[in-house]
């Protein structure tokens, strides 16, 4: 009993911090979401709105399109980063690779760059008439690449920029996971005659599951709240082609000062993130029950 009390005592500071920075803002947002509150309105005070913000939300096509766009973006980003990250992790672990340490350092550098700087850099690379990307795409392939006017180009560039920034994180996580794998099951599978694909699918992937799960969760949650990079790259344009949910909420909360509606949007986004993460967790851990 005494040990248990000491355990709670050690946990108390972290619990207190989590309560103050996590739980209290959540309750506040939940509270604000039930009010009509715009400091730029004729009446800038909080006025009870009940579920009106949520009612407006389910009919708001800009918000729903933004949410759908964000889910598509997150899907492409997470899947691409996982696949490419795994390939890169295996490549950087290969003994035969010349200059392995140099490449490891180089490929990890984007992680330390601030998102706002990443967005600014990619903007300079891609800005029409000035950046080197549109110049060489036109010169070598004849492609009129323009992120300011072409929605597909802007969306693809946002995905590639996120890949460049965060794939090293996935690679590092997978490298750590692969390095920690025990050798015996792999050797046994080889002796039993398993080919590379079978060893990968039936031995490596199940043993890597905890690392994969953590990596996917972190990247999924990050991808669903991309704001600063996208703001610097396209400002959500052209039209609304790259206005992801985080950016949409930011536009409503700060320039428009619509706090009540912004709170409702934030809560719905949190709901989507939690549900997606939970579904992914259940699917990846395979918690099959008797009804299955």
């Amino acid at each position, binding site marked *: *009993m005494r040990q248990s009390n000491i355990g709670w005592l050690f946990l108390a500071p972290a619990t207190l911090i989590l309560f103050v920075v996590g739980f209290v803002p959540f309750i506040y947002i939940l509270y604000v979401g039930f009010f009509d509150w715009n400091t730029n309105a004729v009446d800038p005070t909080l006025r009870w709105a009940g579920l009106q913000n*949520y*009612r407006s939300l389910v009919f708001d096509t800009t918000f729903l399109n933004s949410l759908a766009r964000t889910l598509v973006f997150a899907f492409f980003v997470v899947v691409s980063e996982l696949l490419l990250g795994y390939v890169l992790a295996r490549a950087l672990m290969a003994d035969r690779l010349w200059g392995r340490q140099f490449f490891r350092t180089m490929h990890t550098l984007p992680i330390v760059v601030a998102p706002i700087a990443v967005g600014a850099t990619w903007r300079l690379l891609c800005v029409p008439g000035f950046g080197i990307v549109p110049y060489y795409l036109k010169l070598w392939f004849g492609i009129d690449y323009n992120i300011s006017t072409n929605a597909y180009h802007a969306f693809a560039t946002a995905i590639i920029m996120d890949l460049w920034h965060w794939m090293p994180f996935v690679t590092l996580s997978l490298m750590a996971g692969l390095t920690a794998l025990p050798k015996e099951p792999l050797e046994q599978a080889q002796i039993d005659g398993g080919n590379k694909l079978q060893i990968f699918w039936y031995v490596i992937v199940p043993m890597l599951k905890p690392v994969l799960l953590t990596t996917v969760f972190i990247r999924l949650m990050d991808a669903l709240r991309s704001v600063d990079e996208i703001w610097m790259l396209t400002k959500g344009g052209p039209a609304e082609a790259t206005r992801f949910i985080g950016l949409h909420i930011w536009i409503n909360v700060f320039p428009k000062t619509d706090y009540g509606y912004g709170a409702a949007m934030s809560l719905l986004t949190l*709901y989507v993130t939690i*549900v997606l993460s939970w579904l992914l967790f259940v699917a990846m851990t395979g918690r*099959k029950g*008797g009804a299955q």
Partner: protein
Amino acid sequence: MSGFQPQKTERDGFLPIRTNGFDRGFISVVILILVHLLWMRFLEGVLPLGVATVLCLALAVFIIRKG
């Protein structure tokens, strides 16, 4: 070893996964929110939102007891 040990209270119910009490509560809340949002979007003009609340609470009790 007399410290705090989490209790394993997972069980098989009609849900397709093994669940504990928290899981069943969580699933109930998720369904409640989803049904209310969809109700507001498609059915509120015909049936009031209170109907959704009553249905979801009944479903929540069923999930928590039998899920």
